[in-house]
């Protein structure tokens, strides 16, 4: 549920500039995140996504500009490099953080969250013995234990098997439905397209696009053509012109068309176009 844009944003990045060793890695970053939306930040490896998340969460002061959060909003951060206590069990790991956060009725809360992330069966297992996917779930459980208003997630599904990644996406979607704001850093385009209300594309330290996935794809739909698969097995690609319309109508009347669709680019195509990256062909 994304509330109306009249509501004040829960998070505002204003002209953030950050340099490392004389190299500017973030240059005038400006966007806002509305309460209750999933905002995706996409970018190539090394584009400065993690640096930006650190600035937004107050771990790193920017060289210039500011990151402003709603003062009443609590935050939870899940980053890939953040470890768990490997000798301790899943339950003990969460118990420590429940004590740290001052959670009321910790036992019930931990049981609920373990159920939610699908780790109930493994609650007595030492964290070191968990698979990578289960460790990710444990990290997510740790974030959810605090019940934060804004969740900052740095590539939460990176390197996970499809089932685990899907489970994490489902949890995020549930949290969004509970009114939580999610700031999702990812380089999985399909994930951003399906999950995010709005996304920002980060390239060369700048936000080169910001909007809903559909808006962005529509803005970069240069081909504007129709793709047809005919009953004789041939594929046709026709430009969006009156002549093509007549020809398509003829083909449909002649019952020669198996499939017909517009050739809007997907987010990955747009991303590759904008960043100048070559798209790896599907095997």
């Amino acid at each position, binding site marked *: 549920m994304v509330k109306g844009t009249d509501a004040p944003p829960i998070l505002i990045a204003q002209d953030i500039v950050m340099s490392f060793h004389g190299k500017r890695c973030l240059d005038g970053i400006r966007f806002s995140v509305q309460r209750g939306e999933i905002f995706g930040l996409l970018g190539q490896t090394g584009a400065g996504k993690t640096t930006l998340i650190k600035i937004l969460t107050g771990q790193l002061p920017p060289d210039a500009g500011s990151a402003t959060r709603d003062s009443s909003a609590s935050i939870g951060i899940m980053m890939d490099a953040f470890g768990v*206590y490997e*000798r*301790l069990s899943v339950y003990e790991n969460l118990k420590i953080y429940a*004590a*740290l*956060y001052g959670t009321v009725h910790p036992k019930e809360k931990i049981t609920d969250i373990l159920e939610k992330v699908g780790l109930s069966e493994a609650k007595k297992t*030492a964290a070191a013995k968990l698979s990578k996917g289960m460790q990710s779930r444990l990290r997510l459980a740790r974030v959810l234990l*605090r019940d934060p208003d804004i969740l900052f997630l740095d590539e939460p599904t990176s390197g996970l098997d499809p089932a685990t990644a899907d489970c994490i996406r489902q949890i995020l979607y549930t949290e969004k439905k509970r009114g939580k704001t999610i700031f999702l850093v990812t380089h999985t385009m399909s994930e951003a397209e399906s999950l995010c209300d709005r996304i920002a594309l980060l390239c060369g330290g700048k936000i080169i696009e910001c909007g809903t996935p559909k808006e962005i794809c529509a803005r970069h739909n240069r081909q504007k053509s129709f793709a047809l698969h005919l009953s004789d097995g041939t594929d046709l690609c026709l430009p969006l012109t009156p002549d093509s319309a007549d020809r398509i109508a003829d083909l449909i009347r002649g019952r020669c068309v198996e499939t017909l669709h517009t050739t809007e680019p997907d987010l990955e195509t747009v991303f590759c176009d904008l960043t100048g990256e070559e798209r790896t062909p599907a095997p």
Partner: protein
Amino acid sequence: MRYITAIFYKQLLDTKKNNAVLIQFFMFPLMAFFMEHMIQIAEMPPHFFAKMFACMFVGMAPLVCMSSVLSEEKERGTLRVLLMSGVKPWQYLISIGSFIFCMCMIGTAVFTLLCMYRGWDALVFVCIMTAGIVLSELVGAVIGICCQNQMAATGVMVPVMLIFSFVPMLSEFNTTVAAYTDFLFSQQIRTLINHIGVTAFPTKSICILAGNFFAALAVFLFVSRKKGLE
């Protein structure tokens, strides 16, 4: 206070399952117990092994545990999570320091019993051990803060620990070593323990201990300000 007790509790749970750290707290008290009961030599001063191992314990256990815990938490990223959860670096250090201190005091209690100290002597012994444990923890914290991972910490910790824990033992047998290493806090812990019951106030030892404490504190403050805990 909530953060401090939560981290203390975390350390208690973790240490129970961390044999490498756990052994540090019990190795010297156990060795002292067995040596005291197994080896009896006529010319040997009373409770020779208990006093010697108490000095070694002070120079090794707090230092090794403090630097191990800090460097491991840094390496695994768990310290960062704690700091991002709102824990202040001083709260973390106080929690871990208090836990290690409490564990070392169990060892101190064992040494007090082995040395058969009673009343005032026992209190003086505990005070001497407390001073040594705090100093050793400060040195361990400096190593833990300076090193990014356990491998690096071990590389620094082992020679430092060998100096602080083995010098008092070597000094028992060699006066030259004792003379040259008089400035070390663990050496003065040995001197003070050996002089329990002597009425003269050990001004020199107290001054050296105070000097060691302020030097360690200055280095600790410098590195913690410069490097922080991350």
